[in-house]
């Protein structure tokens, strides 16, 4: 039996998290099939077929699948599930939205947000916002799994030439309708996927002072984050919040500025590869997890930081 990955795309391009899902799936079973359900999604199918880890692409084309409404996608996945041992998607708002609907109809207990595969039925997943890790064994016959994209490398996008099989679309319940999507317009990368994140906390003292953070973010092509304290104080909008009640980020470089390091914030960033802390309080808990700590007044340190960055000939983007 094979494993089925549900691809996320916008009908013209595959979203990169699908590549992480494909790689994770291939660690369970090498016979990876990928469902591309969409509307006029030929290009996405070609893109997936070129991924060397993919053995077969299933294309289901219908206007009903254009906006991947969970109510419409679920019946198709449930019907296909019969032939697969594992149904896999990424644990982002795409996979989280529809996978439990599929699991419920298959009477399967979903394993959410796995970060490690031990065997075909045993996985590691974070609980309590990453403050503990549980090793769990699924005893269901069929497994519905969402994977944490940042915990698995992306599958290489070339070298494959799998077949594309057309699948009939099936009836949808017509109980939900897509109205619109407003993509966050920002010159900066998305917080959840940025390679570098620089965050400000209560130590920033005002929203105006975030311009010091923004200048460095522009230089490093970084996303801008914030602690809950900074958001609660009104310095910056909610969607920048990193932490247990905000976004969980795993960048290569995380720079915490004027952030003391409350548990709730650490839960959202402590898996980052390199952590830098800039804080004038040398006893701040953030220093205990920082790879590089700078005990300094941020209002002096940030302009100097920018100056030093300007001196570098090259900066990784």
């Amino acid at each position, binding site marked *: 039996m094979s494993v089925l990955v549900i691809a996320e795309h916008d009908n013209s391009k595959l979203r990169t998290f699908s590549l992480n899902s494909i790689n994770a799936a291939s660690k369970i079973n090498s016979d990876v099939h990928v469902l591309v359900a969409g509307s006029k999604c030929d290009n996405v199918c070609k893109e997936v077929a070129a991924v060397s880890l993919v053995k077969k692409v299933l294309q289901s084309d219908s206007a009903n699948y254009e906006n991947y*409404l*969970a*109510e419409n996608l679920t019946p198709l996945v449930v019907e296909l599930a019969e032939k697969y041992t594992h149904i896999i998607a990424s644990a982002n*708002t*795409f996979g*989280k*939205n*529809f996978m*439990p*609907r599929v*699991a*419920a*109809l298959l009477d399967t*207990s*979903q*394993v*959410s*947000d796995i970060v490690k595969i031990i065997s075909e039925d045993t996985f590691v997943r*974070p*609980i*309590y*916002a*990453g*403050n*503990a*890790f549980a*090793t769990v*064994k*699924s005893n269901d016959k069929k497994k519905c799994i969402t994977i944490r994209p940042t915990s698995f490398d992306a599958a290489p996008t070339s070298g494959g030439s799998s077949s594309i099989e057309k699948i009939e679309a099936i009836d949808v*319940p017509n*109980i*939900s*309708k897509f*109205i*619109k*999507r*407003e993509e*966050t317009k920002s010159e900066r990368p998305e917080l*959840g996927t940025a390679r*570098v994140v620089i965050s400000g906390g209560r130590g920033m003292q005002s929203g105006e002072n975030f311009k010091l953070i923004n200048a460095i973010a522009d230089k490093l092509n970084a996303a801008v984050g914030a602690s809950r304290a900074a958001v609660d104080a009104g310095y910056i909008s*909610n969607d920048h919040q990193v932490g*247990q*009640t905000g976004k969980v980020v795993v960048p290569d*470089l995380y720079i915490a500025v004027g952030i003391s390091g409350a*548990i*709730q914030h650490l839960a959202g960033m402590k*898996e980052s590869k*390199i952590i830098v802390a800039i804080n004038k309080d*040398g006893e701040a808990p953030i*220093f*205990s997890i920082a*790879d*590089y700590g*700078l*005990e300094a007044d941020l209002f002096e340190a940030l302009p*100097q*930081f920018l100056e030093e*960055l300007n001196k*570098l000939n090259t*900066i990784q983007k």
Partner: protein
Amino acid sequence: MKILVAVKRVIDYNVQIRVKEDGKGVQTDNVKMSTNPPDDNAIEEAVKLKESNKAKEVIAVTIGEEKAQETVRKALAVGADRGIHVKADSYIEPLGVAKILKKVIEKEKPDIVFMGKQAIDDDCNQTGQMLSSMLGWAQGTFASKVEVKEKTIQVTREVDEGLETIEINLPAVVTCDLRLNEPRYASLPNIMKAKKKPIEQLIAKDLGVDISNRIQQLKVEEPPKRKGGVKVANVAELVSKLKNEAKVI
């Protein structure tokens, strides 16, 4: 319109989680418990709909041990009309929770079910979607704005790319994001009044649904500890280390 809100009692989000030495879970003895944060948003939204005369009745339901009633009591104190406590002495997976809620819903016949998008203990993010699916209803997950119309609700959803707006038929399940609203605090008089509001008690295992767990928790571990790093003397040293040692810029 009748609204049902599902709430869960979890370890308070400000508590430092400690893994038990035997690896069988996390410490819950003498630990502060409270309502799962986005469930407070769910209650708030339901109460607001009642205040604007769009909803007639708000019912708060929880599943769990005796003390889980506290979360229902809190919901009653901020404006829910009555409560249901489904007593269960051990952990039930989201699949089982959804089956129990479905039973309650078949009896109560609400038009909207609100709950938090995710519980901050097991972090599954499944119950609302599973419930909606079992009922054959529509869902609006990660809701940061809801507009209730006569036969539909318009839900603005927090998705990875930004905001998505959908219109879903009633009845429906809506899972709430923290940005949906600002949950109120209960006033002392309302806390007193809530003590007189009725809470019906049901027993989970008597509801005739299969709530057996399918997932075995083999062990629970502390996350790998980050080894304490170094302090740098100045900004120039920091940039040099990031460039030449960590190689991240």
